[in-house]
């Protein structure tokens, strides 16, 4: 278990609601939930298997102080960002953002599941987008395919061959992007300096709480 996780567990003792309110983006909204379940019923992925806890259960678990259950949950990573829950919530809880916030917090304290595919995509996307300031779609796809190793990556790439070829033919996929050619911002240096400062300030703000 990571030091950061330990540190946070100790700092907040048994008050997991306070921990989420102060440390997770939009976490202050959790107490507004009235357990109606509209969020879960509206979720497009809640009709698939593999869910442990949909949003309203996550919210109740937080209030019940079930720290381990929440941090081990996979519900947060089922979000497609469709915003159905967000617009339907009768208490105006920004459910989508709260779920994203809990996922980010779990990641920050080293508790995010290691090989959860959407978690992996999320990290890969941000790394890719901030490297050159713009998304390199080919490198993004490659790093997703090869997340489980070379063999699995080649298999996946073969499965997707006709889709990729269709896009290349339609002029919507540039194979040269694989080599780092293609779309970039000019002031990459400025972007990196800006992001470093933003990360530093965010860490400072979070540490100042509690």
């Amino acid at each position: 278990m990571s030091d950061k996780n330990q540190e946070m567990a100790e700092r907040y003792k048994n008050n997991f609601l306070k921990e989420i309110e102060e440390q997770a983006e939009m976490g202050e909204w959790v107490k507004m939930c009235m357990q109606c379940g509209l969020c879960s019923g509206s979720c497009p992925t809640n009709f698939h298997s593999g869910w442990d806890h949909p949003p309203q259960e996550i919210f109740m678990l937080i209030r019940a102080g079930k720290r381990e259950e929440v941090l081990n949950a996979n519900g947060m990573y089922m979000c497609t960002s469709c915003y159905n829950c967000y617009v339907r919530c009768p208490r105006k809880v920004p459910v989508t953002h709260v779920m994203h916030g809990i996922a980010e917090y779990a990641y920050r304290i080293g508790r995010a599941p290691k090989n959860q595919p959407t978690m992996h995509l999320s990290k890969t996307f941000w790394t890719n987008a901030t490297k050159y300031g713009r998304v390199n779609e080919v490198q993004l796809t490659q790093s997703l395919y090869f997340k489980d190793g070379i063999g699995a990556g080649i298999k996946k790439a073969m499965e997707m061959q006709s889709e990729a070829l269709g896009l290349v033919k339609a002029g919507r996929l540039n194979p040269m992007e694989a080599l780092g050619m293609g779309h970039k911002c000019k002031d990459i240096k400025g972007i990196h300096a800006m992001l470093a400062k933003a990360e530093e300030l965010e860490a400072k703000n979070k540490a100042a709480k509690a």
Partner: protein
Amino acid sequence: MARKEYAFYPGCSSQKGASASNYLVSVESMCKTLDIKMTEIPDWNCCGASVSYAESGELPRIAMNARNFALAETNLPGQDIVATCAACWLGSRESKERLEHNSKLMADTQTALKEAGLQIKAIPEIRHMVEVLIEDLGYDELKKPVKKPLDGMKFAGYVGCQTNRPFGIAGESFENPMYLDKLIETVGGEAVKYDQKVTCCGGALAFSEPEKAQGQIKDIIEAAYDGGAEMIVTPCPLCQANVEVYQGQINKKYGTKFNIPVLYYSQLMTLAYGGSAKEAGLNGNVVKARKLEEFAGK
């Protein structure tokens, strides 16, 4: 001088050679006819999209969006920012709202922006291309340049998620928005009734959990066929790609025989305005819109 001028935020997917490059081609043709001048924000960057949630953190994500605001404000003063991508629009608009309602967040963002030699004075309005069409021009103005109405063609207007939620188009309901149907009718097409108009295509999960996303895409396409549609039309680059590109895989998995073209509203408008197949970016469609190719050649 053009009738309207905007600071254009095309976003990563609409760049040349990227997955929605045909969206860009058709938007440029459409804007030319409508006398709308779109000037690209110099050196714009990625909005972070929704899916970066797990790593980005609030301030870095907002700083990325704020950099675009500062660049637009400095280089294209007085112009609204217009995004064609649903995620760019959402990310920018969300960032603007949070910055304007949270002075601490604004102060921190300014400190970060300073590192890139930028600052924000007043954040421009953030608009979606569809808002510009409907609110700044209106359906009547959009109808005027129609030379070749798309008579007798049946389209399923697929609005999807992020041009509809959480912000949506003013005056429209989240559950049954009508603007896309109205745009289809404005160019002479028929908007069919079907029950998956605002269903999620799976978004980024099409990459990370294809089984889940493809299940959703299947429902959408099935409903469009059931409604009698010959083609699907959407305002979102990710909806377009997801619903179009995976039809082959879905056919393999479910034994379906899907082969339905998925277009952008801007492609329909370009064609109705008398544009060529190339100007409408039809060569960028993976599932070829044969009927429209023939129509454009007439």
